[in-house]
């Protein structure tokens, strides 16, 4: 046991200060996408909806409905329409109402 004691002392503190302070390891976490509404066309939206493996994305005529809760951050939508998708820096998404995670993204791109 003294072995372990000394080890621990030498190892020092690794514990994060989160949530009091931000934690920089968060930088590498997969995050759900954010969308550039002006680059977003119906076609691009449909492509994204098609490749989305889950029910996270769907399109209501001129709105891309994005269910953040269902998003696995797989990044396929970004591959399908690179210019319309930007990384959202968000991982603190926990909420008390499921519906608060469902976002309407206006499709402002394309003709019109």
């Amino acid at each position: 046991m003294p072995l372990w004691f000394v080890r621990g002392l030498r190892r020092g503190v690794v514990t994060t200060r989160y949530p009091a302070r931000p934690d920089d390891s968060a930088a590498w976490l997969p995050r759900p996408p954010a969308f550039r509404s002006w680059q977003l066309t119906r076609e691009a939206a449909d492509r994204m909806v098609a490749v989305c493996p889950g029910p996270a994305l769907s399109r209501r005529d001129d709105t891309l409905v994005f269910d953040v809760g269902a998003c696995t951050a797989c990044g396929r939508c970004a591959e399908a329409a690179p210019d319309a998708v930007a990384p959202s820096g968000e991982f603190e998404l926990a909420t008390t109402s499921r519906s608060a995670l469902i976002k309407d993204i206006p499709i402002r791109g394309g003709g019109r």
Partner: protein
Amino acid sequence: MNPSQDEAEVARRLRDTIAGQFGRSLHIRTLDTGSCAVCEQEIRLLAAPHYDLHRLGFFFTPAPRHADLLLVTGPMIRAFDVAARKTYEAMPGPKVVVATGACALGGVYPKDPFVHGNVGALLPVDVWIPGCPPSPLALLYGLSVAVGRLAEKAPGLTFIADGDGGGA
């Protein structure tokens, strides 16, 4: 599905009770309803030195009898209904149910004969933590939200990245 006002009201009152009654000592029981074993690993890591949820007054307890918060992962397999209900009923009130991970939020498996598709179909969920898997940091945030220590940001987020990138 738009939020009914009273539902949010109930949730808020519950959170106040929890915060009031359990202060800085809240006991967590986990429940795997068909996850792929990754959420479980992230949850285990909450107790690891890097995250050490004990410093925040959270503790894991194997007995639902002592648990105040149920951390549910997986798409709620139908074959698991009995166990899930029993676990929930075994907990003393007031109790919080936290749906953890994309499966639990209906992001992976659709509702079908195998699974309910999301935890809300069987248990009254109070807090939803997205992510596949939700990282320990996301879990810590979710737990803090569950006991009302942190204000939730999700309703304010638009996920529209026009001009400046980022979420808000």
